[in-house]
């Protein structure tokens, strides 16, 4: 089954601002990262999937349903966590999530049970009886996730779930999302402008920029194509670059570092040998993080391999 499929999906606001243009993609179930800079069209894309916005042209299918004509059926099977603040301060999390469970059609007692379950799964225990207004940002994000989870959806749409969280909170949230995708058996679409964190948990990645599709692929396919070793020496950077080029390694300068595509395990050895032969003080040699970020840079690194 295809999770999400779009066919030349286009959305323009007022005929002038283009939020999405000619987006055609197809995503399999699993954890999907939807990455793009602010204003790239991520939120618009999600709202179209929910049937909250109608596309200007083209079409979308979610869980094999059309969100334009079958919005109700789509919404019954999808959980949505918005980016912005969406919690009433003077209700307790337990009451609020129960209420929204009933809004999804859960019978009264089931809604209460599942609300407690959902809040427990996101890591809120006794606090759930306190008013939301007194919660920290991290707890609020958890409540937002819990309300998206309460009616046991088949697909979760999470818009910037790590917004406003500190590094520990981000890690906890990402671990939670990974658990939902892997253990709960619920497909997840995670929107983020931070590639580094999304690529850690996703099976597939969709990158959009200015409303256009940059790339849509399995994460493994992307990272192998863009694995890069960063070499930094305290002195003699030019010498090393020349030597590596002689050895047939395509070197690229990036500030004080040299970037070498990681072809195979031998690349490490060849670089180390070159550094040793030139007797240079090696500062660092590591596999570069945020590899997928290269997608947004000029396409050189991708075309190198």
């Amino acid at each position: 089954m295809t999770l999400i499929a779009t066919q030349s999906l286009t959305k323009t606001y007022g005929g002038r601002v283009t939020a999405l243009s000619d987006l055609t993609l197809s995503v399999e179930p699993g954890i999907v990262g939807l990455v793009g800079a602010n204003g790239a069209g991520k939120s618009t894309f999600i709202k179209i999937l929910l049937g909250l916005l109608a596309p200007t042209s083209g079409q979308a299918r979610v869980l094999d349903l059309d969100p334009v004509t079958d919005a109700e059926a789509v919404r019954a099977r999808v959980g949505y966590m918005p980016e912005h603040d969406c919690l009433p301060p003077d209700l307790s999390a337990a009451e609020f999530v129960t209420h929204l469970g009933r809004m999804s059609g859960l019978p009264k007692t089931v809604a209460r049970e599942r609300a407690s379950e959902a809040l427990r799964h996101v890591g809120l225990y006794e606090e759930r009886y306190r008013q939301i207004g007194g919660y920290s940002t991290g707890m609020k994000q958890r409540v937002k996730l819990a309300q998206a989870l309460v009616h046991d959806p088949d697909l979760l749409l999470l818009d910037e779930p790590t917004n406003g969280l500190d590094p520990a909170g981000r890690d906890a949230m990402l671990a939670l999302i990974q658990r939902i995708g892997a253990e709960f058996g619920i497909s997840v679409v995670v929107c983020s402008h931070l590639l580094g964190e999304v690529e850690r948990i996703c099976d597939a990645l969709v990158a959009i920029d200015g409303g256009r599709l940059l790339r849509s692929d399995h994460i493994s396919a992307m990272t192998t194509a863009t694995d890069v070793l960063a070499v930094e020496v305290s002195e003699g950077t030019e010498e090393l670059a020349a030597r590596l080029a002689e050895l047939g390694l395509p070197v690229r300068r990036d500030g004080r570092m040299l970037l070498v595509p990681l072809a195979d395990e031998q690349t490490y050895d060849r670089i180390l040998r070159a550094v040793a032969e030139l007797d240079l003080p090696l500062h660092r040699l590591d596999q570069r993080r945020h590899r997928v970020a290269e997608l947004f840079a000029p396409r050189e690194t991708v075309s190198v391999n």
Partner: protein
Amino acid sequence: MSTETTTPAPAGVIHDIGYQRYAGARLGRRYVAGSLYVHGLRTAFGFGRSAKAKIFPWLIVAIVAVVAAGLAAVRSQIGEVVLTYAQFADAMSWLVIFFVAVVAPELVSRDLRSGVLPLYFSRPLHRADYVLAKLAALITAVWLLLGGPQLLMFAGAAFTTDKGMGGVWDEVLDLLPGLAYAAIWAVVFASIGLLVASLTGKRAFAAGGVVAVFLMTTPIVGVLMVMPSTTVNRLAGLASPSSLVQGVGVWLFEEWLVTDTPTGIGVGRFGPVYGAAALLLIVACVGLLLARYRKVASA
């Protein structure tokens, strides 16, 4: 290093029974809208909310209840009907204004303010159902506010009547127009109040707006009332929601509403005009409310 514990597993693991999928019933549109209606009605009286949210609604409830109890007591002691059921609703109208001014923002402005609408509308809840459930909740709340005390008065009168079952039946015939009149108050005031409150997320502004709409229009009626033309005098009540409802009341329930003193406004042969105007006002308010929510929180 540490003493032996009898529980081998860490506490956290015991709680973790894993995620359970839900395969049970998912109820339809009627249940969802009904739940929202009940939730709204509870919200109106501060149930399931903080103690602070209960103060104002229950203060008003207490006032009308005390007035009704007083009237019932006077009736049973002296045997004099100070206010009929319909007149009671009339006399309490200014309290209804404040009640609507407080409760309508609680129902809709809060949702706008806290940004909770995207959570509602990303569920299988229709936008129109949201609006109608909230409106129905407010109408019911206002009707209960006016009708409940009437029942109290009825109970007082029915138990002290000396004419047996016939006397009770007479009371019922008096009570029904009173309850119907209260319903007209409720529908008109709730529609206007909810529309005004839905325009802003700030509760204080919304409350002020509601009071302003009801009270600012009253002087216009006063000015029109002293105009030299009788026709203008008769139609003056159309200018304000309160006098509009009174006009409809006089048209439909003159027997119960206008006793010895000419309290309200004379509508003459313009009764149907008042009726049509009230109907038009309600339809316009509901239409505008639906239009308001067609766009909100989607972009």
